[in-house]
């Protein structure tokens, strides 16, 4: 059972970026402008600690979110997708004229009891 998944189109872009940059991580951003979107960085570029929750792995890339944000997200299932766009963050897909984005849905009952046991 996976809490975060990725569309084929987005997986293709992740593969391209891995070829160019090596090992990568996703970090879900919050806040204004280009926030509320997943960002992809070279592994090691961003300092992660126990306040960053590992939600899972997509296309061999760990997907993290900060703990305080996760508290509001943990009842939802995420799918990483990609669309044409132009962000102003440091996310590595931006020079391709693309932006990753998240589609969300509620966890099913089965998923919820698996991921968030009472």
């Amino acid at each position, binding site marked *: 059972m996976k809490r975060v998944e990725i569309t084929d189109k987005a997986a293709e872009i992740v593969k391209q970026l891995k070829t160019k940059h090596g090992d990568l991580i996703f970090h879900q951003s919050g806040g*204004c402008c280009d926030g509320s979107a997943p960002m992809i960085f070279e592994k090691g570029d961003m300092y992660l600690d126990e306040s960053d929750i590992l939600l899972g792995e997509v296309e061999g890339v760990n997907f993290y979110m900060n703990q305080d944000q996760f508290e509001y997200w943990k009842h939802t299932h995420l799918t990483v997708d990609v669309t044409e766009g132009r962000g*102003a963050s440091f996310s590595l897909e931006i020079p391709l004229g693309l932006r990753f984005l998240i589609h969300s849905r509620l966890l099913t009952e089965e998923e919820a009891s698996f991921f968030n046991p009472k």
Partner: protein
Amino acid sequence: MSYSKPEFKDKYFNFINGKFVPPVGGDYFENTSPIDGSVIAKYPRSQKEDVENAVDAANAAKEAWGNTPAAERAKLLNEVADIIEANLEEFAVVETCDNGKPIRETLNADIPLAVDHWRYFAACIRAEEGSATELDQNTLSMNIKEPLGVIGQIIPWNFPLLMLSWKLPPALATGNCVVLKPAEQTPSSATLLMEKIADVFPPGVLNIIHGFGPEAGKPLASSSKIDKVAFTGETTTGQLIMQYASKNLNPVTMELGGKSPNIFFNSVMDEDDAFLDKAIEGAVLFAFNKGEVCTCPSRILVQEDIYDAFMERVVARTNAIVQDNPYDVNTQVGAQASNDQYEKIQSYFKIGKEEGAKVLTGGEANKLEGDLANGFYIKPTILEGHNKMRVFQEEIFGPVVCVTKFKDEAEALEIANDTMYGLGAGVWTRDAHQLYQIPRAIKAGRVWVNCYHAYPAHAPFGGYKKSGFGRENHLMMMSHYRQTKNMLISYDKNKLGFF
């Protein structure tokens, strides 16, 4: 009355050391207008080498600029203000074209406010003084303010010229040289400004670099040859910039967004008068600048005994919003700044509805016709729900507001402060006690009381919690761009007597 798309050149350059220079690598990116998807122009896709050239130019200029009299620096800032003001309409049309915001906003808010920020800091630097304290009869402690040196500034796309005008004047007034990177979605007004003011400052004092975050923004933020970074944007990039700055032990200031509560107590409906009308407009201000504002009042909290009557009027006022061609002076809400924002907002409609939020109005894209069919228009939207829903917690950055009700003051504060952010808040009441006590109890840097969305120079603006730190738009920002040189002077002729 309606304006139309302005003329642009085919491509533009960076502004480094007083000259327009092409990017070293020769690469450009295409910038488009969110109004209709049409091409504006090509802008430099700068790389590390371009950033280094700009940083070197700034370093070469910093000694002379830092020693330039405050009177002269202030004069140049005032010149910039006069030039923007003299070309106000031209700047407004370019800004509308690049960002998608309605022309009535750029004509009446963005550009006039930008002018005033330049003038405000020109005035501040003339008025402020250092300090001296006589510690004892023979010992004087003297504080002289010195510039940091070279500042890297990274600004967002929601108010391109205004954000530039929040950042540049305090840094330049205090004698720093700057390398600024505009957002890649909206490089046009910064470029127009450089064309108009190319000769105002000595070469190297002000440098503008265009390009993408990972390619140009990161080398700027991590450069060991700058002395400070100022950033407006989102939390993840904010954290990265702080990390890079920590390697150089550089100071930073951060403005990182919010999820601002706008609280309406029952006394607003005690009378059906001008104040109630103002309060209803205050709730509908979520749609200002299509919600692309860090302080967007994106959570409306209404006291339960007036909830139905109040929201009926808020919904009616929202439904009366004119969303059309941003070049038309009657248009109130324009196009979202880019396709990815447009898609993101719609993904929030989906999860909001799944979480059980009720759509009171809007809740979908607005398909306009003709030339505007390729633009990114979202209907002003009101979602009703509770504060634990994701749409209540995340910055959607669209013309989308979430509304919920509260019983009493304690519950209003509990909901208002139940957020990661603390940038802005609104409090609306006729109760004299609430006017003071509620704003004091809200954990946010700016609380608008019986008003909202005013951003005058001379009122400090900045965040609590994950909304960042630093206070812009006020003379206290100048301290974020300076060192304090303390001279401890002895006027005692006699030795200590230790050795």
